[in-house]
């Protein structure tokens, strides 16, 4: 591969992306997808070389175009018998490639083992289940659970509420990302991320964000969350929250501070103000809406099924609790004060309680 030529290609394609949007790359992609978009297509060696057009079109790789990575496809392809060249991920994603290579995971798996370049999505347009699903391809969920249960209290609950990369990379800027989960009516199955079709049926609208964002202002208020949670009752659905990083890194490592529960649990309500609601999209992937600041700290109906010990405590509830304790404390103080003032009135044997 001629690196300079590839960089030129990428620069050109990015320029196209900003000027002519994706249309510049589309005719060329279309040419490739005419064959590779056919489910039964096989290479000369018999390998499946099918690319799901719907998934590919949603990737940023579709914008830079097929030829950016496969730049030596002859005009006789596939008749010439030679396999097209492939760029390495590091050619474009150099810093990420270096970071990953140096990490604990670098020698265990290649980029392609986790990311299919024809179906790659940014973390913010993926559900938590999808991201963890990539890890589960190699790391058996049952064994993962058993290993974590050796030291982590309520391991199942933690694994349900966290991305693996939250603890196992140096990712940062954590937020709570909520999504709607569903299960079959009458079943005791685990909840799974609700599909676009399910939510479209429920909302009877194409823009399923309006299911919660009732006024369509692209911000989910606490009141809208409450209404939605009320609406969910008896529908075998729930609003589930996961702690997700905004800045994702590939620095896979065992971080010492993650053994300490206070890393998350002592972050305090101030760190728990920012949250989002993720909705599945018709063409795959997710889009997210910002949620009113502090909504997940609401006592009951903001997120009835999501609670992070120590961090998502509610201030109004703390005030009620403090008043109860103060009431209990005021009795000995008040009574004791008058008891002291009137101590001469009591003979030793006559006043026992």
């Amino acid at each position, binding site marked *: 591969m001629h690196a300079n030529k590839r960089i030129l290609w990428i620069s050109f394609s990015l320029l196209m992306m900003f000027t002519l949007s994706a249309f510049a790359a589309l005719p060329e992609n279309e040419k490739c997808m005419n064959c590779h978009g056919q489910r039964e297509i096989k290479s000369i060696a018999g390998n499946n070389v099918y690319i799901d057009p719907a998934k590919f079109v949603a990737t940023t790789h579709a914008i830079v175009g097929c030829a950016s990575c496969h730049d030596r496809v002859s005009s006789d392809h596939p008749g010439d018998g030679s396999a097209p060249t492939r760029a390495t991920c590091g050619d474009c994603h150099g810093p990420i490639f270096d970071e990953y290579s140096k990490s604990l995971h670098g020698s265990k798996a290649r980029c392609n083992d986790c990311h299919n370049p024809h179906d790659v999505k940014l973390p913010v347009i993926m559900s938590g289940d999808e991201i963890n699903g990539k890890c589960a391809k190699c790391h058996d969920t049952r064994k993962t659970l058993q290993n974590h249960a050796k030291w982590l209290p309520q391991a199942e609950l933690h694994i349900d509420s966290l991305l693996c990369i939250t603890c196992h990379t140096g990712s940062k800027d954590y937020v709570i990302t909520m999504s709607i989960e569903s299960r079959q009516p009458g079943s005791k199955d685990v909840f799974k991320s609700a599909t676009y079709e399910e939510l479209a049926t429920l909302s009877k609208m194409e823009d399923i964000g309006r299911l919660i964002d009732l006024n369509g202002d692209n911000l989910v208020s606490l009141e809208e969350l409450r209404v939605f949670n009320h609406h969910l009752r008896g529908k075998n659905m729930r609003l589930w929250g996961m702690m997700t990083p905004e800045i994702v890194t590939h620095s896979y490592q065992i971080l010492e501070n993650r053994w300490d529960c206070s890393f998350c649990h002592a972050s305090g309500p101030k760190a728990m103000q920012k949250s989002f609601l993720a909705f599945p999209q018709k063409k795959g992937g997710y889009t997210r809406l910002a949620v009113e600041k502090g909504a997940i700290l609401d006592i009951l109906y903001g997120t*009835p099924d999501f609670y992070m010990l120590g961090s998502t405590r509610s201030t109004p509830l703390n005030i009620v*609790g403090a008043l109860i304790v103060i009431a209990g404390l005021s009795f000995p103080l008040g*009574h004791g004060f008058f008891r002291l003032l009137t101590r001469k009135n009591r003979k030793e044997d006559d006043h026992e309680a």
Partner: protein
Amino acid sequence: MKHKEMVYMTPMPVRIWHWLNAFGIVTLCITGLQIRFPDYINIFGAYKAAIRLHNTAGVVVSISYMLWFIYYLVVAKSLLKLYVPTLEDLKSGILRQAYFYFLTYFVGKPNPHHSTPDSKFNPMQNAAYLVIMFILLPLVVLSGALLMYVAPLRELLLLLGGIKMLVGTHFLLACCFTAFLFVHIYLATLGHTPFAHFKPMWNGWEEETVEDTLPTKDK
């Protein structure tokens, strides 16, 4: 004339339960404080240590509660007699006792209730213990047990209104127990000496001042 008598007021199983329960509840309150406010309070070092201790104390209190219940109901057979207030208690006993605590106590009048092994509690204590032992303690034990196993008991949690409802209930109940501790310890100092009510809970025997029943030679 009056004389002192020693009365065996508190049987050993009840004393063991009481101190086990007291130690457990104090531990639960302190560890609970760290669990809820870890960014401000760190008494037991690691957060996990506070949670483990909280869970262990919760199990100890739950088991001791069951033993207490079985002892009074089956062995001593005095559960209802001791803990359920009579109609008279509800009509006037509670008011009379409150009148004593908040007024006549300060002018030196005697306590209208006299404790005996069969009637240990005054009407106010009766009503308070009824609520605490039969409503608040079972609720805090149950909510705590559910919170220890959130994932396996998810269905039950959803039926009860979700985890936040449960956490909120557990927290407010814990605040009630903390408030109760202050009142309970203070009231225990209102005997004829400040430690008069602590002793029977330690060795079982309470010193009573009673009127002589035998006629004197002068009469």
